[in-house]
């Protein structure tokens, strides 16, 4: 619902609160933290894809460096991500290991007075291979009998589990009789898909500064999406009480899921600083970051789906084999969530799911803006497009007929997190989008000739707003907020929640201002640390506004109640606080508290000042909130592309990006999320991948951005042809009707682009990215087939 007019601050365009800091270069990121007397660390990364090694650091130690070998770190097995409950958490990581399982895995570390000295010491550390194994770079090969075991056994919660055939974990699920449904379907198609393995290329390489404190604890500045989970992990690995681990909140130069887990640099920095008894800075270069501990999940999927002539889906089988790399971060929850993405897109009828996560000797996978959702959506939206075509139905109508929407049961975050959909802008977005792009007049697939061919594609998607639900599932999902009114009536909002730039904390400030009827400038967002904030699980799953924002609103409501109690005393009229009203006064720039139909009134600043001067005590509230739903934010993208059939290059011509995020709290920032989400999705669709060398098992495009191509300002459509539209919806469970946005913004992009390419040249692609090479190869292949069948026909005639 358009928030304009109904709210004073929510939905209003104002420059972001941290804009001045960022525009003037004064925002401090973890990479910028510089402590007096600190040492610089370097990590010795495994050059082997899989080996057992012996580390000899005598020479480095002789040079005066502080050295850590696998023997010098706590003998603790852990999972760097703590979002799932303990019993669903698989642990197979160590801080340093003498059994590295991917090229880049940390084996040893050194610290010295300068980076150069540390580098020299690092080069003096000798690594002797005791046993080298054949690298396994493909999940199907890895599960073949006789392949080397990447892990013999790992821990689940507190118990050991054996790993068979390199299968990390599995999940199967079914509902209804799929075989019957498919045999009775009028149309059945089956397709296999293989995604790319994308690198986050978050702007800020992973970094940590750790300072040992006199009380035996540590203070840490690092790239993280969650200061509290980082605190807990450090505490668990090093056996320090959580009250002595202070993780500072600093600006984050992009996360996109790469720091939901605590990056290894953080633990290495803590270990080095504890040994050195001095602060240590451990900063990665871009090259190192690329092979450190984060890429997206590479998925091999198979979908077999059927529909009836009447245009209804009747059954589907979904197989999902995930190449998770050498360690588990969150493949186990993803097996459930991937199924959640699948079932929450369409009413398939009967379903059967088979999910399997497989270890390989590659950089470990984690969430990347969408947590498997863009991958699944790409496959589903391709299949759905093809089914519509088989049924000779309009792809838009086919989608509208079968999608999961208002009133339907929704379990986007997997089978343990279910709720009912209450707001749904899909029909509006599909209809308006179709009209704006000129859907009815789009070319027919493959009917064009000539060098440049244009096509229009559509895809829809969604993402949850957080991971809450009525029941406590296997995901931890709650947020804290602490709010206090200062003695002049301004407000400090203390939150652990990280804002990676999406404007989450701006939204919170607006929510607080709205609730307390005070100007936005009077809401100060406090940057502090894990010891002065109330627990927040993490900024992920597009939950910042929906869950964190609701926590802020509840804290504000609590504060408001106390304000009114004090106001009664000041007004000295014979009513209770419930009779008082609050409104914003533009002239006073303050909240006015009044009694309807009387002259009695006071202001918030008066209340705050009086409470102070009369010794009434401070007004504050602390709230911890868990959402009982995770409503979907829907997106529907229409994309027009142009394919150059001589070079294979694809160019976006026009985009209509529709989003249903409930009440739009920050219009310009939400638009920015959609635009940024589209462009990131564009990169995944046509540019980005991290291939490996089959012999050495090392990354081929090690750390070079030109090797790992991402979109530049030259790759986007003209800005007047890039439309963002918002649906007019209101989410009854969200703060002022709001839902999330970050991930929904990019989930359907690759699918829409692939469908547009099909519309332009009549060829479907089942492997991402759809690079110029792949397009040219496919065009040539089609030409060759065309010639051959022409020859055959020719032959038959003679």
């Amino acid at each position, binding site marked *: 619902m358009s928030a304009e007019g109904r709210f004073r601050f929510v939905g209003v365009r104002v420059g972001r609160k941290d804009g001045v800091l960022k525009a003037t270069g004064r925002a401090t990121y973890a990479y910028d933290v510089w402590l007096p007397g600190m040492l610089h660390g370097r990590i010795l990364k495994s050059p082997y894809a899989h080996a057992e090694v012996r580390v000899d650091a005598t020479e480095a130690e002789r040079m005066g460096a502080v050295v850590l070998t696998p023997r010098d770190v706590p003998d603790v097995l852990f999972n760097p991500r703590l979002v799932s409950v303990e019993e669903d958490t698989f642990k197979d990581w160590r801080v340093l290991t003498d059994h590295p399982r991917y090229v880049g895995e940390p084996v040893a570390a050194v610290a010295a007075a300068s980076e150069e000295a540390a580098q020299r010491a690092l080069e003096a550390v000798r690594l002797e291979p005791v046993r080298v194994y054949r690298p396994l770079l493909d999940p199907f090969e890895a599960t073949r009998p006789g392949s080397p075991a990447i892990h013999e056994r790992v821990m689940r919660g507190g118990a050991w589990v054996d790993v068979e055939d390199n299968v990390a974990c599995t999940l199967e699920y079914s509902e209804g009789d799929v075989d019957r449904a498919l045999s009775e379907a009028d149309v059945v198609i089956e397709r296999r898909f293989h995604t790319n393995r994308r690198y986050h290329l978050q702007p800020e390489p992973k970094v940590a500064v750790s300072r040992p404190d006199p009380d035996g604890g540590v203070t840490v500045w690092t790239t993280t999406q969650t200061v509290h989970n980082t605190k807990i992990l450090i505490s668990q690995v090093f056996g320090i009480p959580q009250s002595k681990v202070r993780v500072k909140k600093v600006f984050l130069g992009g996360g996109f899921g790469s720091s939901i887990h605590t990056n290894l640099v953080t633990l290495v920095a803590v270990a080095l600083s504890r040994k050195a008894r001095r602060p240590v800075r451990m900063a990665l270069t871009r090259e190192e970051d690329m092979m450190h501990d984060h890429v997206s999940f590479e998925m091999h999927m198979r979908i077999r789906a059927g529909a009836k002539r009447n245009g209804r889906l009747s059954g589907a089988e979904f197989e999902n084999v995930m190449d998770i790399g050498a360690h588990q971060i969150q493949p186990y929850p993803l097996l459930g969530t991937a199924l959640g993405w699948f079932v929450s897109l369409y009413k398939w009828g009967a379903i059967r799911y088979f999910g399997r996560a497989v270890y390989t000797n590659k950089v470990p996978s984690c969430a990347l803006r969408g947590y498997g959702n863009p991958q699944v959506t790409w496959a589903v939206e391709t299949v759905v497009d093809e089914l519509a075509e088989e049924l000779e139905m309009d792809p838009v109508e086919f989608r509208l007929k079968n999608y999961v929407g208002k009133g339907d049961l929704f379990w986007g975050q997997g089978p343990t997190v279910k709720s009912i959909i209450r707001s749904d802008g899909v029909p509006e977005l599909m209809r308006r989008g179709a009209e704006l792009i000129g859907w009815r007049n789009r070319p027919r697939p493959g009917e064009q000739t000539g060098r440049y061919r244009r096509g229009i594609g559509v895809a829809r998607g969604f993402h949850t707003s957080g991971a809450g639900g009525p029941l406590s599932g296997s995901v931890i999902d709650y947020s804290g907020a602490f709010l206090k009114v200062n003695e002049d009536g301004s407000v400090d909002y203390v939150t652990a929640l990280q804002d990676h730039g999406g404007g989450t904390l701006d939204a919170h400030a607006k929510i607080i201002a709205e609730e307390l009827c005070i100007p936005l400038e009077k809401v100060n967002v406090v940057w502090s640390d894990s010891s002065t904030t109330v627990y927040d699980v993490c900024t992920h799953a597009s939950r910042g506004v929906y869950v964190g924002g609701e926590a802020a609103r509840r804290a504000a409501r609590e504060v408001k109640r106390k304000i009114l109690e004090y106001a009664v005393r000041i007004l000295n009229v014979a009513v209770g606080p419930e009779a008082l009203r609050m409104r914003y006064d533009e002239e006073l720039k303050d909240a006015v508290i009044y009694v309807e139909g009387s002259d009695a009134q006071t202001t918030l600043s008066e209340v705050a000042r009086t409470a102070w001067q009369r010794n009434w005590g401070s007004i504050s509230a602390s709230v911890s909130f868990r959402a009982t739903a995770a409503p979907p934010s829907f997106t529907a993208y229409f994309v027009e592309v142009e394919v150059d059939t001589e070079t294979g290059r694809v160019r976006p011509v026009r985009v209509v990006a529709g989003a249903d995020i409930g009440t739009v709290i920050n219009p310009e920032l939400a638009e*920015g999320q959609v635009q940024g989400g589209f462009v990131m999705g564009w990169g995944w669709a046509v540019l980005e991948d991290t291939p490996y060398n089959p012999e050495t098992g090392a990354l081929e495009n090690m750390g070079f951005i030109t090797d790992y191509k991402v979109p530049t300002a030259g790759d986007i459509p003209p800005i007047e042809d890039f439309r963002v539209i918002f649906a007019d919806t209101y989410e009854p469970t969200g703060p002022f009707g709001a839902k999330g946005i970050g991930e929904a913004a990019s989930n359907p992009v690759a699918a829409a682009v692939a469908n547009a390419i099909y519309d332009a040249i009549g060829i479907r692609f089942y492997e991402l990215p759809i690079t110029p090479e792949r397009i040219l190869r496919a065009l040539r292949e089609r030409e060759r087939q065309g010639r051959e069948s022409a020859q055959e026909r020719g032959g038959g005639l003679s």
Partner: protein
Amino acid sequence: MEPRVIRFRLNGEWVRLSVMPNELLINVLREKLHLTGTKYWCGIGECGGCTVLLDGEPVLSCLTLAVDVDGRKVTTIEGLATGEDDLTPLQRAFIEEGAIQCGFCTPGFILTAQALLRENPNPTEEEIREYVRGNLCRCTGYVSIIRAVKRAASEAVKSRRPGPAAGAASG
């Protein structure tokens, strides 16, 4: 290798310090002078995040030797404004257009755009895209950045003041 003493005008003030002949400008700025607004993304000239102005021209400080700025003028993001009250039109436009998300690319973009507006006070959209092509942004999708540059340009033209680049780049 022997250290060398260099002198250059940094954000309007002369500084003098001793550097190694192979020392990079980005490290001198960030580590010795603690001007951390200049950002490190890649260190090899591929992202534009470390852009500074050298005699008004954009250069990549990760590919510039510190000794090469001897006697010259260097402007970093810190040299444009100290806070809310003295923001340049470009900085204001970036904030107001929502062209800043995580902010890691922002200093590089603002300085690059400033050089563009000095060369060409009223660039077309195509010219803006072309000029900032070497600067990566992973968050915004560039739309709001292009809008911000356009807005700053048109405001400067409207107010018939010299382009937004004029004041600070001479600093």
